């Protein structure tokens, strides 16, 4: 894919093209014929720095919101040539079809989905051969000439190129964010269906084959059987090359992340280790490792604890000595910003998400059995790595805890409620991001229950059956009520959350706080009304996208931080009603109410203002694209396109039975046939299938 479509991705070219595409349009009326509202610009009486900036932001978006059918034909042609608008329906060259189109046409109709520019069809010269219309035979798109499209292939080219080929030295500022870059690009590609085999999400490969045959002028008007046979071969050629490239890419991702993983010694009080089966297990592993290193106890297998050895199981020793020592060191681990960088929870979050995506892509049974799935090997490697390090991550995370006695950290004899926060890394900042970045990997890796899941065979005898050995009830410090209490204390008087208590409410921290509370099932700790009202106010009246804070500007990345938070809260509110309403019934038959923000307006902002015509997405039209904004615009687009669901979504088997795998959508903006992307899990922000896979594979 990358080799097939070299990208000419330099900022200047992008800016120029973007300026040219500033003619891009759409009148705000959506494809589903919603009544037209007037979406007012921000109102103000007093000019201030804030209002001037706001006016500038509106002004740079305005050209994208103009009425498309009113554009001169050259500009429409340009939009078609860059792919923002569907190509003209070549099938209609037949006289009959042209008539049909013209019959439908209201010349002065300004609704994007109706005006089809029938006049122009007569004047346009079609040089392309008729048979190339295989790529544009979609009847609905031929009726919707003004439906804006997601530039799927261009985004794929931008993102896969970023992963595959070295980045210019200008990227050194991201040198401590390697796992982030990988996650941003991989998750985006996954949303775009890059790794799918022709399922619900469009695959790029099918269209690359199509465009290949269309593009080659030599294939002209010949449609003999022999020609068709040759084409088919060419298609499978391209297909096979692509599969191999993608598989290699996935493998490289796992390898790169593996090199970002680093282990560090962390210390615990001995009492804590004694009551925590996971820490005990780590201690055993370390002891074995030491012993193996010293070549004393060579008999111990590498996979798990003492293989049925007798009473002198050396693995028992560390625990006994633990009880005497005050502080015990175990080996923790996490992913750093790059090779040989210290573990950091944000990059650990990104790395675990990326590895989960790879594991799920490779190991989920799709149409084929898992063994001959072409991505099975990278998937297996990713899963193997995650399984190997999960307890190390757990220990690392626990070592980052910071206890707060009460406000201002002053001693209060009674009533001072303890709160637990986390640092982002050792000797690093404390804020609510850390809570989310820790809880999410733990959720995916099954580290958030009290029931111990490690082989913790105190008797040393292998007699006990699996289920028994795995259900030791141990204290899990990540379930301490002090953790959600800290998160809740970051909610401000406005309703959103700040980085630390009393910091200003902000979209990024609000998402982290809410998602973390959702994972912990602790949403009732906060003022839900205030939060939902604050979130609603963050959608910009005119632009349709979200801003991060009160009186700040629209930015495509908040499509997810705020839009995703709305999805999390809306679905929680619904699930909560379900729970309190009819506890007896187990079905989730009640129709989910639609998401509470304006999903069409958000899609419109993303597709019109945030897309760079050369691929990649951005903050706003005056900003350049980057991986981060590509990821969170697409994630926000996903949230806006897909109907709400319960969280966690039921396991794969259950959901298949439940609604016959029928995906439900919200109202869509633009070209509904080509714009649909995968459904992201709004709490975790990887595709829901990926989350389901990880949860189904915890045992």
């Amino acid at each position: 894919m990358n080799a097939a479509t070299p990208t000419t991705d330099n900022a200047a070219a992008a800016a120029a093209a973007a300026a040219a595409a500033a003619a891009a349009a759409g009148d705000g009326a959506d494809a589903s014929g919603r009544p037209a509202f007037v979406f007012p610009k921000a109102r103000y009486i007093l000019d201030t720095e804030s209002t001037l900036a706001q006016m500038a932001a509106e002004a740079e978006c305005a050209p994208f919101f103009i009425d498309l059918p009113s554009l001169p034909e050259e500009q429409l042609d340009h939009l078609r040539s860059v792919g923002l608008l569907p190509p003209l329906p070549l099938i209609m060259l037949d006289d009959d079809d042209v008539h049909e189109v013209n019959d439908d046409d209201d010349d002065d109709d300004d609704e994007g989905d109706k005006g089809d520019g029938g006049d122009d069809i007569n004047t346009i010269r079609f040089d392309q051969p008729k048979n190339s219309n295989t790529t544009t035979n979609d009847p609905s798109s031929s009726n919707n000439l003004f439906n804006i499209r997601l530039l799927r292939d261009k985004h794929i080219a931008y993102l896969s190129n970023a992963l595959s080929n070295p980045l210019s030295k200008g990227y050194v500022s991201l040198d401590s964010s390697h796992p982030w870059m990988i996650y941003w690009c991989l998750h985006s590609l996954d949303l775009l269906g890059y790794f799918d085999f022709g399922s619900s999400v469009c695959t790029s490969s099918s269209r690359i084959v199509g465009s290949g045959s269309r593009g080659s002028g030599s294939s002209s008007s010949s449609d003999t059987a022999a020609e068709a046979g040759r084409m088919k071969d060419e298609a499978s050629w391209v297909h096979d090359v692509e599969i191999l490239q993608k598989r290699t890419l996935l493998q490289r991702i796992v390898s790169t992340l593996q090199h970002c993983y680093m282990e560090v010694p962390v210390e615990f009080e001995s009492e804590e280790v004694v009551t925590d089966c996971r820490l005990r297990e780590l201690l055993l592993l370390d002891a074995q490792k030491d012993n193996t290193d010293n070549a004393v106890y060579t008999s111990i297998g590498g996979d798990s604890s003492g293989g049925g050895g007798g009473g002198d199981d050396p693995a028992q020793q560390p625990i006994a000595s633990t009880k005497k020592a005050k502080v015990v060191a175990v080996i923790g681990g996490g992913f750093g910003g790059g090779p040989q960088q210290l573990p950091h929870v944000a990059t650990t979050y990104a790395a675990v998400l990326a590895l989960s995506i790879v594991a799920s892509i490779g190991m989920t049974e799709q149409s084929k059995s898992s063994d001959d799935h072409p991505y099975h090997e990278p998937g297996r490697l990713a899963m193997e790595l995650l399984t190997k390090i999960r307890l190390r991550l757990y220990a690392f995370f626990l070592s980052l805890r910071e206890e707060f006695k009460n406000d201002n950290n002053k001693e209060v004899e009674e009533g001072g409620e303890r709160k637990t926060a986390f640092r982002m890394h050792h000797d690093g900042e404390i804020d609510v991001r850390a809570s989310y970045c820790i809880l999410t990997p733990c959720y995916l890796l099954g580290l958030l229950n009290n029931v111990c899941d490690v082989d913790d065979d105190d008797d040393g005898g292998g007699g006990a059956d699996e289920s028994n050995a795995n259900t030791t009830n141990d204290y899990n410090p990540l379930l301490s009520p002090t953790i959600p209490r800290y998160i809740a204390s970051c909610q401000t008087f406005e309703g959103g959350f700040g980085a630390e208590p009393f910091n200003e409410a902000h979209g990024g921290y609000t998402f982290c706080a809410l998602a973390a509370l959702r994972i912990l099932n602790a949403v009732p700790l906060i003022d839900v009304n205030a939060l939902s009202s604050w979130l609603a106010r963050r959608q910009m009246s005119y632009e349709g996208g979200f801003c991060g804070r009160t009186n700040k500007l629209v930015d495509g990345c908040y499509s997810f931080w705020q839009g995703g938070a709305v999805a999390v809260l809306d679905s929680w509110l619904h699930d909560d009603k379900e729970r309190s309403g009819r506890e007896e019934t187990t079905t989730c038959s009640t129709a989910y109410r639609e998401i509470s923000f304006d999903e069409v307006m958000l899609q419109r902002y993303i597709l019109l203002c945030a897309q760079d015509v050369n691929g990649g997405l951005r903050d706003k039209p005056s900003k350049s694209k980057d991986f981060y904004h590509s990821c969170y615009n697409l994630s926000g687009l996903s949230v806006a396109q897909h109907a709400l669901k319960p969280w966690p979504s039921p396991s794969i088997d259950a959901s298949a039975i439940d609604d016959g795998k029928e995906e439900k959508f919200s109202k869509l903006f633009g070209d509904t046939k080509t714009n649909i992307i995968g459904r992201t899990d709004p709490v975790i922000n990887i595709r829901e299938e990926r989350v389901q896979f990880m949860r189904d594979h915890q045992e």
Partner: protein
Amino acid sequence: MNPSVVLDIVPIPQDDGPDPVCSIAYSPEFVHAYDRFRAVLKADERSERAFHLTTTCLELNPANYTVWHFRRQCLIALSSANTSGRAPKIDVERIESDLDFADKLGGTNPKNYQLWYHRRALLEIRFGGEAGDALLEVAKKELDYIDRILEDDSKNYHAWSHRQWIMRTLNNPELWTSEVDYAYSKTIEDPRNNSAWNQRWFALHEGRSDVLTLETAREESRYALSGAKIDPFNECPWRYLIGVLMEQWRSAHKSGDAEDIARIIELVRENIDNVKEMYHMWEENPPSEDHPISACVSLLSALVDLLVLFKDEKELLAEAKEIVKDLTVEDPVRRKYWRMKEGEISKLLA
């Protein structure tokens, strides 16, 4: 290249494995510096030359938290102040010069976590070594630094957050009072600077979760309405008003004290009347020709928030319902939210 980057240490290249993804085409000087940094890190060499090496590395990439961490370890190791005590110390001169270093690296609008955390980590040590007026002096100097940053970007999130940390750490009555004034000075520069409104809330609460006194709450509601009068379309004063009143409301109802409850009910009613009065005033004399006050979403939604507090008073609820219906039209991007609200109010009315 810094001349003190010595050459007698065996460089350790970056080990990113075969064919890494998202690799960066580093400049030769970047590779040179970081190969040596990995070497001193591995050897845990907390020396003067290692310290200088971190300077070079951070100039090349100020977001490398590993380098910052190691730099702090060097600072501690190199400080004569570390005699015996348990808490690590760093010489004052070294702290001061490193604060300057972080300042220069960040430029006029520093926005990376590492730079700000470095200040915090250093100042934590610095504050620990001072007391009384000397401590206050150190803190004020840092507050001045933050002020300079806010001059350039009055909404710099890190800067405000850092400011709050200083205030909380010092917890000094004089500073709390002056911070209210500071927040005010930033608010009048731009009444839409929400960070400044937030800082006022923080300063008045002195960083604690204790609720304001009813008297202060009354004053603050007046303050908010004065702010709203300048520009009723500004969301900040309205949400500040709701924040102040809701805090009182919740606290009184939580305590269950009948007198407290009666007093806050009175205060809320007073504010409802004031808001309505403002509304009618603007109805007659529109604040702007372009924008009728009926389109003032911030005012109306604040009014709704106050009205629906009275869950048993049908008249107030009916009033709220009418406003919400209007908002569905006036504020179309939020129409689904307003319909949801309308449903909730209808339920209360039923």
